[in-house]
């Protein structure tokens, strides 16, 4: 049984999870209106994973993930305006409109993307851990992937090097049970993902990724392990995405009942709200205020994403090469 958390922490966690949910709902609307195009992968249902992990990180820690990345960015404290404006391809976006949903970054928040090639972020995250160790900055790399990516070969190349060199990296497998339209059962031999580091002596555990406190406690164990110089750690987060793989996916490979059951029985936000009122005795007023505040923040982000101008045509040919300290 988890330890009780403070009211302040609960309010922050609730805020961060709800912000992601409401942001993503608006993003879906904007997609439907044609303001967002291309690929757009929503994080709805998985909010407790990133918020729980973020709660125990230190400023020097780095975060990297694949393309279902809006939640990671908001949890890392990136400005919803800049994220939404990137989704609409505007100059006010985090990548000046040149990256899109899958390619956003923030050096300031130590968020290293936003990567569109399934699994490619895993060696990169291992490299961020290599840099932490090399610089001895006591940082830990939080390297996330989905259950789909967990079958890519480069993941195992990364596990090997991370363990061989005792790199401070926590591999998060966000198991939402579907790699696009292929269920875990149809894609993955073997019973789990958390145990796949065994051959390299990497400890792993399975976590209820729908429960903030469970995520937080497991993340603390894993991050402490990595920060102490003991090497990598794998956390398999049992979670679920409510929407399709991307906006163009009607998700016909699973039943409506399956989705509804998760929503009713395991929703990370609804259940956390009950925990806040019933167990932590937080007043409805305080919770309502957060909900109202988020409504405003998300609407402001939407407005910004509509009014921020498209990138200047001259931006087509900028940021291809960094000429900063090049030898000339």
């Amino acid at each position, binding site marked *: 049984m988890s330890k009780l958390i403070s009211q302040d922490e609960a309010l922050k966690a609730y805020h961060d999870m709800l912000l992601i949910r409401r942001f993503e709902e608006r993003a879906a609307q904007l997609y439907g209106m044609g303001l967002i195009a291309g690929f757009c992968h929503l994080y709805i249902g998985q909010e407790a994973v990133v918020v729980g992990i973020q709660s125990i990180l230190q400023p020097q820690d780095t975060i990297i993930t694949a393309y279902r990345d809006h939640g990671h960015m908001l949890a890392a404290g990136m400005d919803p305006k800049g994220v939404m404006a990137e989704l609409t391809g505007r100059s006010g976006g985090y990548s000046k409109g040149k990256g899109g949903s899958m*390619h956003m970054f923030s050096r300031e928040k130590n968020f290293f993307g936003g990567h569109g*090639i399934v699994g490619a972020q895993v*060696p*990169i995250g291992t490299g*961020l851990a290599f840099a932490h160790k090399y610089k001895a900055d006591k940082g830990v790399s939080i390297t996330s992937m989905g259950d789909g990516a967990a079958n890519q070969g480069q993941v195992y190349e990364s596990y*090997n090097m991370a363990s061989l060199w005792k790199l401070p990296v926590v591999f998060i497998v966000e198991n939402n049970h579907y790699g696009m339209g292929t269920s875990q059962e149809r894609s993955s031999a073997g019973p789990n993902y958390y145990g796949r580091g065994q051959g390299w002596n990497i400890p792993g555990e399975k976590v209820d990724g729908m429960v903030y406190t469970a995520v937080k406690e497991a993340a603390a164990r894993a991050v402490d392990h990595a920060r102490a110089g003991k090497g990598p750690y794998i956390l398999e987060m049992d979670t679920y995405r409510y929407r399709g793989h991307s906006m163009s996916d009607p998700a016909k490979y699973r039943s409506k009942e399956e989705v509804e059951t998760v929503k009713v029985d395991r929703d990370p936000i609804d259940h956390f709200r009950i925990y806040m009122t019933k167990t932590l005795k937080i007043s409805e007023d305080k919770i309502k205020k957060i909900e109202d505040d988020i409504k405003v923040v998300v609407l402001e982000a939407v407005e910004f994403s509509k009014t921020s101008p498209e990138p200047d045509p001259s931006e087509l040919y900028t940021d291809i*090469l960094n000429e900063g300290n090049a030898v000339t």
Partner: protein
Amino acid sequence: MTVEKTALPNPGLTSMTVREALRDGMAEEMRRDSTVFLMGEEVAEYNGAYKVSQGLLDEFGSKRIVDTPITEHGFAGLGVGAAFGGLRPIVEFMTFNFSMQAIDQIINSAAKTLYMSGGQMGCPIVFRGPNGAASRVGAQHSHCYASWYAHCPGLKVVSPYSAGDAKALLKAAIRDPNPVIFLENELLYGHTFDDVSQDPDYVLPIGQALIRRPGKDVTITAFSIMVGKALEAAEALAELGIDAEVIDLRSIRPLDTETIVRSVMKTNRLVSVEESWPFAGIGSEIAALMMEHAFDYLDAPVFRVTGADVPMPYAANLEHLALPQVADIIEAAKAVCYKS
């Protein structure tokens, strides 16, 4: 051992092999910048599969000279992450043939992320190692990647010929804030050149070709080991009364188009030499550039001397036929001078 004279009189220059020059270039940059490190297969305890990193482990230790498992895709990606994290990795591929395992990380992660991040995520990394054919190593170990990597915005591609250039350009590549593909040549590692600067501050800017032999009748462009063959051909052509100008491209991307155009304005004829395949090769690009920039100056079509359009055969006679030879360059130069 013969020392190849590069006709670059400078009292500060010394003779050494390409192998030693590359090693010295890395060592100087590692002394200068503590964030520079070398990783790759057999680079540390074995002193390099081709002994390019000889002695570096002794000087810099295992933190900075890192033996990797045989895991190209993984360590290329790890290098990219380390570069994002503030380090300056030199990633050695035992040969560039193995970089094909890692090409997704090189293109999608190293080359594109600066653009995709709106300029936030620079990736200062060098991928280096021997490129192209060596000797009798067959189709999977003889591949030239100049055209492959030069195709991609966000990368710089360098391919030196002499020891002095190898050192000075490698130092520039290490200092460059962008991903640089540094294509070496196994057969050149043991060649000694007299043009190596020992000034640790001497670097060559990436993107400048060098006229290795001035001439007035025909321009021959080449890079890496083909520069030597082009120079040999030029000597033979001189005896036939054809005065060839040989341009060592040195950098493939950015390409020094201006130097080639100026030369063609003078000679009105161009032969491009490379050991890779003809289709969409460096010669194809140069031919297109000359059409765009020097069309009115050409007195003959641009002639491409390339490797044969086949996977590299193992048999000695077939391998010889598959690679551009001095005689091929001579014939090409004669053809564009209408003297065949």
